[in-house]
Structures are given as structure tokens and as C-alpha cells.
């Protein structure tokens, strides 16, 4: 190579290094070999996944646990399509990841070449933005722009598709500067007039309520949220994605709303006269039937994405901007206006009495999911809990109180089975200082269980707890409650020994069938320096309640 020249692949890796990228989760292929050749010379560590979906979830888990941008990489064609589920998962939960894919050489694009697929076409609906890079000289600016887009405004995945000949192409550095993006200017500070009107409305309210969503952790606004709640003595409820936005044991915290919400939380939503909704998108799992949602409340909707305002639920007062800034401003002005929080005490006591009348009724004895989750909390304390999707996810939402932000990772929007194991690997890579545990069902665990081999290869000690009822639990529950117990296609049968499966991959495998062994198995798992899988053979197929069965959030089975 001539002096002063570089290649696309080298420029890409250098750009990632200069952005501070430490890890890439990936799986190589023919169309990414030039990148891998450069990656080998780099300080960036590569974690070899065992399927590209896992690589995307790892990058996602890394991003959710740390707040930094996660990077995953896959080859063209099937490599890229295997990423799709992971990218869509990150998109629905606004998680900032960069996906880099190889593409067939430029001259072959459109010829249906070997391992060719229209990656940018496929991923338009599931990325915040994507690029097909046609010239190597565009790569440095593209990487910079991609990181900027992924990590600002409403965060989300950005994909960069790079033909293999572009990776090899030589060019003079310092050629291209990034053009300013005329069409992208996220609003950060809330409109002062709207904030002033919000203060008036909140002060006039008799039964105010804060609804916290996933936007709180993306904005790192937990402290500001707690301050706001305490400044005016406002009760807080949360969506599944907002669970870790406040210590769940906080006096003002009244649990999760929605389809599987707590009665006191759904009561709060239904009886509040003003709801301050922050970083929520009012998904159908949270609202139930829209016409019956929060019928008594006027809604102050705070979100960084203006398109979320009024999308599902009309807002009486929208404030577009960054939650951290807006919450701090609201608190400041509320304090200045001498709000009397004690007048909400009756409202809070009312919600507390509803909570007392409607305790959780899960099985707190035996080898049963609620009991196992409770014991995990007792033994493990403040850890990062990663859930999969299904019945165990709802149990985890109710029975595992969290204390700190970014400590409850779950696929809330897309509901991706198979999320937990790879996301936990990514989370542990991001946060080696914290213990990371997984709660999964036997169905969801088996979707991506091969990723344990990656955890073993790179010594990433995650603890995986399988709630094994030999069954697709949520399907079983829905067929039980809504389809007259006509169970179909939910029986996984007693085929796989998950402890042995774990052992076969070099992890520790433990099978627990008796209650007395639950705590010791968990302790052993937490102390291990290797990944551990504990296969809990559940005593019963226990349904996850509460569960809304009617037209309002209060038509609820307990």
C-alpha cells in the first residue's frame, strides 16, 4: 500500500477504536474477511457468538447494561438475516447498537450472487437508520454519523452494510468530512411554556401519578425521577421497560401496570386525575383497550420522540425533550412553587390499602417460579437480572424487586424469546463488576442456549436459572384461561437434560428438584467463575397472575 493510503477495513476498525469501542460481538463469513483481518491487529476484542442472533442480543445487552453503544457484526446474506431478530428487538426497546454487515462486491449487487440479500432493504423498518457504503472513503464519516444517530435523540439500532470490495478498497485518509444532517435535530430541552403549564396542572391535581417507562433508563434519569416524585409526594407506577427506573421498594412505588400489572398499579392508572407519563409509548400491553385507559386522567406526556405524542393515547399536555432535563426542571419549579405534597397522602394511603387487599398470590414454597425468584433476590441482592420472554418474565417483573437502574433487562417491545442468554453475556461483558443472572423458561432458554459456548470460551460467568415445566408456559396459560384448556403444541416433553447440555459446553450444570437445594444451588452459581445453568424442575405449571381478562385494566384475574 502506498504511503498515506488506507483500506476500507482498516479505516473502519480505526474509526471504531477512536470511538472507544472495546468489544465486537460477531460471527465471520466470506464477506467480512477483510474486516476480520484488520480486527486481528486491533485492540478491540471480538466475542465469537454461536449464531448471529446471539451477536445482536449480546450487543443489545451490552448497551442496556452500560448505556454505551453495542457493536455486532455479521456476514452478508444469512449472516445479516440472522441478525434481524436481534436488531428488531433493539429497535422496539430503543437500544443503541451498531450492526455491521458484509455485502457482496459492488459489481455483483443485484445479481443474486452467493450469500447476497438486500440487507438495507430488509432492515429499513427495524433500524433508526442504515447505510450501504459504496466508497471506502465514506466509511470514517459513516461510522461517526452512525454512532451519533444510535446514541442521541431516541436511541436505536443503526446498520452499516459494506461490500467486501469496499472493505479492500484503498483510499487517501482525510478525504471526506461528515456533512451536517439537516433533517436530524433531536429536541433536548423541554419547552419552557409547556413545563410551566405542566406545573400548574400538577399542582391543581388531587390524584397525581407518575408513569415511568423505558425512556427513564435510556436518559439515565432515575435520580431526577425520584427527586420529582419526592418533591411533590407523587406515587409512581411503571411499565415493564420502566421497572428499573426507581428502586422498587421505594415508598412511592406502586408496581407495574398493564396486562399483567398489579391491581394497585392499574387502580392508580384508572383513578388518577393527572398522569405524568415519561418515556412511555403506551403499548397495548400497558394500556389494554385504549378507550378504557386512564379515563379520568389528563395526561402530561414527556418523550424525546415527538411521534410518540398522541400516537396511541391523546396527551393533554405534551413536552418533547430529554427526560433527564425535563424532570430536573419540573422538580426545580415545583419546589419553587412550594407544592404541598402532604395533600396527596390520602391518595397514597388509598393505593397502599389496595395493595394490601391484593397481595401477590404466587407459590412462595416448593420448587416454583415465584419462590425461586424470591430466593434469588435474597441470596444475590443487587444484580443485573436478564429475563427471557414468557410466564417467567411476568413472575420476574413482580417477584424480583430491583434497586438500581439498568439492573432489569428484558425484551419488552418485541418480546423476543431467546433474548436472555446472549443479552446476559453482553451485559456481563459491559459490567464485569456486577453479577448477572438470567431467568428463562425452558422454551426460551433453548432458543439460544448454544451461546453458552461463547460464555465458556471467553470466561464470562453468567448464572442461568431455567424455570423448567417442560412446557411453553405462557401458551399453556393462555390456552388454559382463554381457550377452554384445549392445550396444543405447548408440550416440550421431558426430552432435554439442560444441566447435561450445559456440562457438554463446559459450563456448570445443576439440576434442582427439591426446595432445600434452591438456595445452595443459587449461591454456588453466583460464586462460580464459570457460566452456570441451574435447571429447576418445577413442581407445577403455575399461571402468572395478575392477568387482565376483560375490557378494562381492572377486569383482572389474580
Amino acid at each position, binding site marked *: 500500500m502506498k504511503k498515506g493510503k488506507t483500506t476500507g477495513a482498516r479505516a473502519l476498525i480505526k474509526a471504531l477504536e477512536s470511538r472507544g469501542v472495546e468489544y465486537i460481538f460477531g460471527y465471520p463469513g466470506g464477506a467480512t474477511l477483510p474486516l476480520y483481518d484488520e480486527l486481528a491487529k486491533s485492540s478491540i476484542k471480538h466475542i465469537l457468538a454461536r449464531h448471529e442472533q446471539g451477536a445482536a442480543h449480546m450487543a443489545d445487552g451490552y448497551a442496556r447494561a452500560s448505556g454505551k453503544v453495542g457493536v455486532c457484526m455479521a456476514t452478508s446474506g444469512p449472516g445479516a438475516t440472522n441478525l434481524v431478530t436481534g436488531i428488531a428487538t433493539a429497535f422496539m426497546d430503543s437500544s443503541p447498537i451498531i450492526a455491521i454487515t458484509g455485502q457482496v462486491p459492488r459489481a455483483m449487487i443485484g445479481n443474486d450472487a452467493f450469500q447476497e440479500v438486500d440487507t438495507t432493504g430488509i432492515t429499513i423498518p427495524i433500524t433508526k437508520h442504515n447505510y450501504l457504503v459504496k466508497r471506502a472513503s465514506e466509511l470514517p464519516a459513516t461510522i461517526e454519523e452512525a454512532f451519533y444517530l444510535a446514541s442521541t435523540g431516541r436511541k436505536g439500532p443503526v446498520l452499516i452494510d459494506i461490500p467486501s470490495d469496499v472493505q479492500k478498497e484503498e483510499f487517501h485518509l482525510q478525504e471526506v468530512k461528515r456533512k451536517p444532517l439537516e*433533517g436530524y435535530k433531536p429536541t433536548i430541552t423541554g419547552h419552557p411554556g409547556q413545563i410551566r403549564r405542566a406545573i400548574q396542572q400538577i399542582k391543581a391535581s388531587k390524584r397525581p401519578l407518575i408513569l415511568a417507562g423505558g425512556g427513564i433508563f435510556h436518559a439515565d434519569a432515575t435520580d431526577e425521577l425520584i427527586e420529582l416524585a419526592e418533591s411533590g409526594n407523587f406515587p409512581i407506577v411503571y411499565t415493564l421497560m420502566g421497572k428499573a427506573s426507581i428502586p422498587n421498594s421505594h415508598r412511592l412505588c406502586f408496581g407495574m401496570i398493564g396486562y399483567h400489572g398489579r391491581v394497585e398499579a392499574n387502580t392508580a392508572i384508572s383513578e388518577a386525575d393527572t398522569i405524568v407519563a415519561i418515556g412511555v409509548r403506551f403499548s397495548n400491553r400497558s394500556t389494554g383497550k385504549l378507550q378504557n385507559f386512564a379515563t379520568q386522567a389528563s395526561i402530561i406526556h414527556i418523550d424525546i420522540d415527538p411521534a410518540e405524542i398522541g400516537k396511541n393515547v391523546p396527551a393533554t399536555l405534551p413536552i418533547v425533550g430529554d427526560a433527564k432535563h425535563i424532570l430536573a426542571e419540573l422538580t426545580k419549579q415545583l419546589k419553587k412553587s412550594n407544592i404541598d405534597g402532604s395533600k396527596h397522602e390520602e391518595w397514597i394511603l388509598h393505593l397502599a390499602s389496595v395493595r394490601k387487599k391484593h397481595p401477590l398470590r404466587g407459590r412462595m414454597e416448593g420448587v416454583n417460579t415465584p419462590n425461586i425468584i424470591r430466593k434469588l433476590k435474597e441470596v444475590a441482592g443487587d444484580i443485573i437480572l436478564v429475563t427471557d420472554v414468557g410466564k417467567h418474565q411476568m413472575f420476574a417483573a413482580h417477584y424480583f424487586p430491583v434497586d438500581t437502574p439498568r439492573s432489569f433487562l428484558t425484551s419488552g417491545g418485541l418480546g423476543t424469546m431467546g433474548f436472555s442468554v446472549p443479552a446476559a453475556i453482553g451485559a456481563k461483558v459491559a459490567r464485569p463488576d456486577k453479577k448477572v443472572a438470567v431467568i428463562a423458561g425452558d422454551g426460551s432458554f433453548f432458543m439460544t442456549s448454544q451461546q453458552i459456548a461463547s460464555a465458556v470460551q471467553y470466561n464470562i460467568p453468567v448464572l442461568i436459572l431455567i424455570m423448567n415445566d417442560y412446557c411453553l408456559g405462557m401458551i399453556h396459560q393462555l390456552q388454559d384461561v382463554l381457550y377452554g384448556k384445549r392445550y396444543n403444541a405447548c408440550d416440550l416433553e421431558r426430552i432435554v437434560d439442560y444441566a447435561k447440555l450445559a456440562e457438554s459446553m463446559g459450563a456448570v450444570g445443576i439440576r434442582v428438584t427439591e426446595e432445600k437445594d434452591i438456595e445452595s444451588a443459587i449461591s454456588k452459581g453466583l460464586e462460580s467463575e464459570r457460566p452456570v445453568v441451574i435447571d429447576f424442575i418445577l413442581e407445577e405449571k403455575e399461571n402468572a397472575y395478575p392477568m387482565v381478562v376483560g375490557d378494562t385494566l381492572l377486569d383482572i384475574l389474580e
Partner: protein
Amino acid sequence: MKHTISVYCDDTPGVLTRISGLFSRRGFNIESMSVGHTEIPGKSRFTIVVKGDDNVLEQVRKQLQKLIHVIRAWDIKPQLSVEREHALLKLKVEEDKRGELLQIITAVQARIIDSTEDIWILEVTGNSSMVDNAFNLFKNYNILESIRTGKIALERGSVLNAR
């Protein structure tokens, strides 16, 4: 209810796919869409007519605005703007209808832009209802084929929403 949306955007590969894909993905119905370059190099402008109530319109506009290459998307009010649509009609002209046709052509301000043997191509320009009207009048004759552009629209006076 129909709404006209104007979209000012970067003229980059795939921007048409991003915009049109957004409509089908979010369940919005496009009545018509037309696009072309503007006087500024590298910038395009779409005029899109959508069906739906005001909420739909607002959601469409915000979703368009979220696309990275969309610089601005806004609603064009019919009373404050001018609009044009263009159509070509290919007619087989029977000898005894020639006179009538020429009268209609004059009445709707159409032009004959080609005549090959006994087949004419007519050009019609006007707002949507003028073009509709012309089609209505010509439909009693032997239309071999026809084609319409979507609507394009500009606000009157000093309103410059693209800047």
C-alpha cells in the same frame, strides 16, 4: 378526508423506499405521490396525498419527520396553495367525432401533443378536479390508454416551509 403533505428531503439512494415503505408499514393509504429534484442540488421534494383524519395526518407527518434524510415534512392547506396535476391520454379518433373532440379539447384547455395516424395523445394540466373533469369528458370516446402524475403543490406568497 384527503390531506396533502409536502416533504423536502435529501436526494439520496433509497429515500423513496424509506418514504413509501413508511406508509405501507404504518397502515397509511397513499392516494398519490410525486417526486422530483428541486432548484437546490441534492434536494428532492415529494408531494403526497393521504387519506385519513387529522390524527392520521399528524402521525404521518411526525413519522416522516423522523426519517434521517427528511429535512421537513408539512401539511399543505388547499386554500393557501396552488396545485397541479398532469395527465396524458391516448385516444383513437373516429372521423365523425373529430369535431366534438376538438371542442372538448379547447374547453378543458388540453393540447394535442402527438397525432400518429388516427391516434392522438392529449396533454391535460390543472388541479385535480380539472383533470378529473377532462377524464370524465373524454371517457365517452375511445381512450386507448392514459396516465396521470400525482399532484404537486406549492403554497402561495412568501410561505417557504422547506427552508
